[in-house]
């Protein structure tokens, strides 16, 4: 238990640096997620309408997850140099696959008979998309965002290797100095952030999930 107290003390002693790193970590994570969302949700809508081409696009996006982020970082470093930019690129690549795949799958899983009914009611394509398909696919899409979120928050620790800052700075300092208390100052906030994201998005996912007929009848 002592080590946690020591870690807390160290964080307090270096609170300026800590909060700066924390802020950098959050900014990097949210930017990467934001970009991935803006790119993948529309892309997912498009790919859900097509067959083979979408398989290819989805498998290509899988590259972001299969290639270790640190390798992407170090590969980008000669081109983009040091700092937050290459870190942002690597993290965005990491966030793309879960969001794209889940958007695509979520939309494909919408019951075709529901869409038929909507078409029968005279809804335009746009109305169908916004009023039927997206709301029904939303739980799955949020599931994808949830996965991406946790992965990105954890992987943003790698930004430290190319001068991108973030909580990884403390992890590396702890490793370099063989100091567990410094290591924990990096590790614990990252874990807490990831857990919080997981819980928040999990709750959101449950909230947007359609109630089963059983639940509706009880209400």
């Amino acid at each position, binding site marked *: 238990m002592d080590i946690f107290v020591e870690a807390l003390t160290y964080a307090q002693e270096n609170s300026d640096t800590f909060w700066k790193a924390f802020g950098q970590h959050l900014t990097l994570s949210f930017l990467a997620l934001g970009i991935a969302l803006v790119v993948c949700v529309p892309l997912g809508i498009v790919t859900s309408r097509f067959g083979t081409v979408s398989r290819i696009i989805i498998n290509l996006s899988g590259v972001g997850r299969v290639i270790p982020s640190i390798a992407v970082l170090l590969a980008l470093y000669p081109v983009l140099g040091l700092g937050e930019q290459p870190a942002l690129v690597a993290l965005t690549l990491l966030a793309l696959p879960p969001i794209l795949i889940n958007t695509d799958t979520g939309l494909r899983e919408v019951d075709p008979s529901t869409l038929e009914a909507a078409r029968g009611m005279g809804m335009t394509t746009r109305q169908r998309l916004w009023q039927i398909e997206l709301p029904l696919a939303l739980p799955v899409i949020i599931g994808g965002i949830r996965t991406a979120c946790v992965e990105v928050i954890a992987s943003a620790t790698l930004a430290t290797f190319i001068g991108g800052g973030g909580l990884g700075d403390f992890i590396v*300092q702890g*490793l*370099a100095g063989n100091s567990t208390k*410094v290591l924990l100052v990096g590790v614990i906030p990252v874990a807490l952030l990831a857990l919080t994201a997981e819980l928040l998005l999990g709750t959101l996912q449950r909230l947007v999930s359609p109630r089963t007929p059983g639940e509706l009848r009880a209400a």
Partner: protein
Amino acid sequence: MKSKTPIGLALASLFVLSLLLIACGDPTATTPAAATTTAATATTAAVTTTAAAPAATTAVAATTTTAPAATTAPAATTATAAKGKVVVASKDFPESIIIGEMYAAVLEQGGIPVERKMNLGTTAIAQAALVKGDISLYPEYTGTGAGVVLKLANPSNNAKQLFDQVASEYEKQFKLTWLDVAPYSNRNGVAVTKAVADKYKLKNLSDLAPVAKELRFASNPEFVGDRSAVDGLKSLQKTYSGFDFKEIVQVDIKLRYKALVDGKAEACVAFGSDGELAGYNLVWMEDDKDNFGPYQTGPVVRDDILAAYPNMKSLLNAVSAKLTTEKISALNWQVTGPDKKEAVDVAKTFLKTEGLLK
């Protein structure tokens, strides 16, 4: 999907099995870096295979349990070390690697069986490995030994006295011997770009202290981490008041100068014998208040190894005698500059020129 699960499981188990075999067979798996990479590759494997979740979690749990199992292996190596190989290591920056390679080369010529573990890690890691017996010797600096390893309250600023202080404490506390140190002192310090030095008329650290708030500072983790108060940024702040840099860009030790070259920082952590100082036309800030004491480098050897191979002493001392600031910074530049030579080649060529290697 149903037919793919057993295949996925089989592939995952095969992968984990091969990792276990590597971890158990290789003594280097005890270094924290190796242990974290094996754990990381295991988790990436778990993510990419679509095998059932329980299989993935047991796979990760299995790999992490092998790490402690692998640490029992080095106990066997210490016992046989006296008769077995001498493990020559170095820290993770070019100068240390070059000098480590020099030590290894002369020992081999002296008929001693050598195993190399260059680029091992930082001071903390190298010292831990030396005390444990995973390595037999590595080049260390007197200033670093005093401040970081021994955490001396009052290290002397006189080179000879500091050496005596450090050597006797190392012998008492760790049963490690300091052989002769090289005449040059490789102090910690700060370098700035020529443009900045000209603009603010900077010659020494006292000049730089108030100006720091306009500048971005590229630093390795140790300088701003828990070594900060010992011989890092906090020690500068204490001695000089000021040094409140606009931004601290923390990078790997080998990327400090890249940050300056790329325009991501105007100042960086510099060491007295860095080749980049001349190579990139940077300005070294004089330590006018003597914040950083002497940093002379020499081999730190385990007593039991030295006892087993007493001729080691004269072989290694011969190397240290030849090292001066000009010579070592030229060697450093051959490795880090445009030539990008291999440290081992640079070391061997130098030894041949100095008549220490055939």
